[in-house]
């Protein structure tokens, strides 16, 4: 190995290590601040306490927003899984032209600025007379979650060998049981990862949801941002820490079921 190669190799690992630290910094900061005793964000904190978790426990607004966000994320993910899986099967098994164009259309909400999509939907819903906040959020969030499902399940189905179902039927299984025994296990990783990312994307969405919330129904990112702007205290760090824990738990479950490397294939 020449000097240049050794230098390049060392540089790659130094940059990678620094990037890992850089990526984890905001999470570490949020956790550290949430356990500090000071009302201003000083690091290292003068002392440790759980007072911000107590404050969080008392905060009605934040918990209401957690509930709203969780409901909308869960329901929109389920709807997206149903619509998206049907579409993926139709795309892979159906015979028609313009397959690529349809896939691009179904995935396109991910690639366009959320703010623009939100404004377009706001005006359309207003035009149609849909003013119900929860229903509007629901309709909008399926648009956010659907692309994740279509992209991942379509990719997985395209690789699936459908003759395996015929093979299982030759071996004596009925069609539904053959699908259950062969197709469902093969698609499970795609379901799990796309469902997880869709759920988290919905929980995290700000630029589209902002157009549909009102004073009574707010999703979590919107309530959090408002909290940061109005009364910046470490209560927000406490709820951030809980969200990091949730993401960590999702990651552990995903790793057990699918494996980290396959999750990174998205």
């Amino acid at each position: 190995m020449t000097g240049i190669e050794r230098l390049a190799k060392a540089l790659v690992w130094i940059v990678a290590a620094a990037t890992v630290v850089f990526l984890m910094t905001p999470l570490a900061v949020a956790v550290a601040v949430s356990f500090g005793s000071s009302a201003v964000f000083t690091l290292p904190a003068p002392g440790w306490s759980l007072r911000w978790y107590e404050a969080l426990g008392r905060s009605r607004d934040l918990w209401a927003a957690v509930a709203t966000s969780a409901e909308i994320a869960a329901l929109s993910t389920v709807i997206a899984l149903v619509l998206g899986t049907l579409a993926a099967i139709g795309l892979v098994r159906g015979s028609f032209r313009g397959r690529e164009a349809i896939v691009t259309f179904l995935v396109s909400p991910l690639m366009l600025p959320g703010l623009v999509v939100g404004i377009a939907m706001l005006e359309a819903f207003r035009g149609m007379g849909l003013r119900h906040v929860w229903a509007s959020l629901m309709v909008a969030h399926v648009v956010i979650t659907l692309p994740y499902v279509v992209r991942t399940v379509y990719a997985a189905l395209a690789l699936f060998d459908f003759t395996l179902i015929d093979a299982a039927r030759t071996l004596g299984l009925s069609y539904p049981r053959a699908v259950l025994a062969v197709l469902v296990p093969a698609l499970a990783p795609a379901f799990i990862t796309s469902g997880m990312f869709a759920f988290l994307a919905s929980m995290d969405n700000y630029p589209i949801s902002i157009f549909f919330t009102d004073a009574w129904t707010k999703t979590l990112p919107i309530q959090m941002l408002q909290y940061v702007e109005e009364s910046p205290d470490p209560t927000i760090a406490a709820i951030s820490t809980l969200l990091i824990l949730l993401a960590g738990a999702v990651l552990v479950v995903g790793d057990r079921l699918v494996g980290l490397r396959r999750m990174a294939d998205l």
Partner: protein
Amino acid sequence: MTARLRFDPVALLIVPAVAYLAFAYGIPLFVLLARAFVVDGVPSVSSFVRFFSDPFDWLVIGNTLRIAVAVTLVSLAIGYPTAVALARAKGAAQAAILVAIILPLSVGVVVKAFAWQIVLRRDGVVSQTLVALHLWDTPQRLLFTETGLVIGAVNVFVPFMILPIYSVLKLVDPRLDEAAATLGATPLYRFFRVALPLSLPGIVTGIAFVFSMAVSMYVVPNLLIGDRFQTLATLTGRSFLFMRNEQLGSTTAVVLLALAVATVVGSAALPRRFGGAS
């Protein structure tokens, strides 16, 4: 049954999803685009003429592009080596890099932007460290500066640079590099003529992802640089949410959309060219 009318029931499975997206998103987007070209009920490009003749709007476009380019370049500079390391890493190192990429991806942008607010303050970690190292004479804030915005935005978007490059690199046969070395190619020559061209599709995808997200980011500038600095996205949001100026909002939305679509379409055309050349 004639060939022309051959009917495929499986294809009907795409109808619910396509119809849903068409009504909830496709048609509304089209209407928004069309509306920007109508002023007082008459077809007109006057709102674009007004938009592009105002020096302030050029400042906004400049801000948007400058920040997006900076975020993309910094993401590439730190993302490429990280992707290379991830492709070569095994065991604990691989797990550490994967967790550092996927965990923040799932945490949410408000949490991260809020944490950077703390880090970038005058009494924050960065300022104190730089003073302690005698690189700065006095504590300064990075919050509400363009540098601070780029740091925070790179932090949010760099996973979208690392993952596509990694997914290409992991398919590259490591023996190609060895073969080139055996044939006497120098390390630099091998990097520029073998490794880099092979990873180019991933790099182009990563650049397209990061650039289109950085052009249209809304929460990060809101929290890290504030109201005095406008980008196309923050101006679009403000004109709808605070100024109630829907004509301006539709116009900036169309400009923003055009930028994002140009990035995606342009990047889709690039790998084919390079793919043919290599």
